[in-house]
């Protein structure tokens, strides 16, 4: 940088939207790993867990680093084309999704006991819904980037708004599955141990929480879009 005096160089900095997209890619990768881990759990292949758990942990650290990097490199003097505070809380919500993926990975591992046969189907359904909410959340983040590229074109704005509506719908559907599954677990309270009841019902809660935070992500994005 010595002997360079071009003020334009100080005017711009890397796009935080691109960084957010990188974060979303990490979520995509960990969600894939979680899917494998969860299938192993359902199929009672507990010995396969450990390396996946470790990989998810590494990814979570990487995502955390991206998150703080975005925060540290957005001083107040930098103007974004959108509201800065809402954008920062959007990052928080997206990162929460990644945190929960890691939490679930760890929580499954804490109690290596087979799942009662008649709950498996419900859990698979709940898990599929969670995956759907994660994917839609990524899609929303990716689309935010397209919106910036198009300089907030109206038609792209509408499409992004539709994605956020979809996140709402998924959260609602996930809620219903969550309630039914919990009810079913408690209806079996005499057949299963108290430990199993606690472990399974918390698992349900964690899955449901992912959909909640994915929905929050959508809400933050909608707040960014509001004119």
């Amino acid at each position, binding site marked *: 940088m010595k002997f*360079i005096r071009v003020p334009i160089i*100080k*005017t*711009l*900095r890397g796009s*935080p939207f691109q960084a957010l997209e990188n974060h979303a890619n990490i979520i995509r990768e960990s969600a894939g790993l979680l899917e494998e881990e969860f299938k192993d759990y359902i199929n009672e292949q507990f010995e396969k867990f450990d390396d996946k758990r470790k990989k998810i942990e590494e990814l979570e650290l990487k995502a955390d680093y991206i998150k703080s990097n975005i925060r540290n490199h957005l001083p107040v003097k*930098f103007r974004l084309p959108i509201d800065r505070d809402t954008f920062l809380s959007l990052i928080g919500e997206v990162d929460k999704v990644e945190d929960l993926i890691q939490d679930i990975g760890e929580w499954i591992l804490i109690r290596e006991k087979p799942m009662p046969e008649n709950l498996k189907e419900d859990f698979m359904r709940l898990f599929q819904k969670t995956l759907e909410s994660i994917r839609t959340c990524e899609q929303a983040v990716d689309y935010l980037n397209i919106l*910036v590229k198009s*300089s907030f*074109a109206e038609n792209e704005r509408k499409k992004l708004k539709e994605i956020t509506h979809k996140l709402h719908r998924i959260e609602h559907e996930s809620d219903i599955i969550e309630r039914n599954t919990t009810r079913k677990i408690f209806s079996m309270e005499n057949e299963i141990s108290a430990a199993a009841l606690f472990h399974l019902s918390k698992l349900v809660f964690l899955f449901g929480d992912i959909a909640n935070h994915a929905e929050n992500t959508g809400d933050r994005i909608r707040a960014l879009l509001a004119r």
Partner: protein
Amino acid sequence: MLIIAIITSLYMAWNIGANDVANSMGTSVGSGALTLKKAVIIAGVFEFLGAFLVGKHVTNTISNGIVNPALFELNIFAIGMLSSLIAASLWVTIATYLGLPVSTTQSIVGAIMGFSAVLNIHLICWGKVIDIVTSWIISPLSGALVAYIIFLIIKKTILSKNNPIEAAKKTLPIFIFFTFFVMSMSIIYKGLTNLALDFGLVYSLLISGLAGLAAMIIGYILLRRYNYEYENNEDKYNKLEKLFIHLQVMTACTVAFAHGANDVANAAGPLATIVDIFNGVSVSSKVTIPLWVLVLGGAGIVLGISTWGYRVISTIGKKITEITPTRGFSAELSTAFIVLLFSKLGIPLSTSHVLVGSVLGVGIARGLATVNYKVIKNIIYSWILTIPIAMIFSAVIFLFLKFLFI
């Protein structure tokens, strides 16, 4: 003394080429529109053409607009101009080392004021100086405004359409027309006296219009040949950026041309005066500008680009990849327009600052992901600092040289 003047003037031109050229080419290299080698060659050609064809208006202002040569003893005036060159070069070198975004233009204007102030503060043509300083404030603002409007037009007519690529093919010929019109107008209207050609306003408008039209038709045909099919929404904007790459190269050339036209004066202006005095031309209100002085200035700039400028261009290119071709096109077209306009009016201004203004203008139109407004503060500091420091440097050097020569 003439030799010292030529060397300093060359150094000044080298400095202009080495650093400021990155303004025109940095974004194009950053977006991958041009390879570094091509950028250096194109910059060299267009800087030289700008300096040679349009450079004399501002050169005239520098050599006799800021102070009135008729009020000086000739040899004292020559020493003064030499001191200004040395002082401005010195300050620009120090500031560059410190990484301050100072402008060569502002340094030379300050330096010329400096040596005159030592003799008599009333020798400075305050009216002209106020014009120049005001234009330093107006030019980035108008750059921002024009860039804002251009980007808004692109947004409304291209980006917000369902098929932006098809929309671009319709709108872009108009931009091509505008660019070529401005460029040829700046060359033809009162411009070709170097080549003993002088057209009136009407003919100039007519010829420029024809040049623009020709470019527009060629552009239209070339654009029609591009067939960018896109797969999804993200791809759509990436392909659009690719289409704009060609136009960004065009505006980059225009900025290089405009920069040559405006900034060659910083090196050539004082030298032209000194050469005239040595040739015994009676320096009255009108300095004749020997063509070889402009050629020398242009050559110095080209030398600067090829010896150091390419490093600055590649550094900048890596740093500002945020400026995609659509954004770069808007900012550069605006910069070129403003700089050429002021060059024709004979007002020396800082291309870097206009470019920053233009980029901020695109940012205000929500075209950029992040914009650092702190840079405005840096620029204002450089305004406040440069004039007094260049004045002091020039005054001290002047007194020393006067003692030495007389």
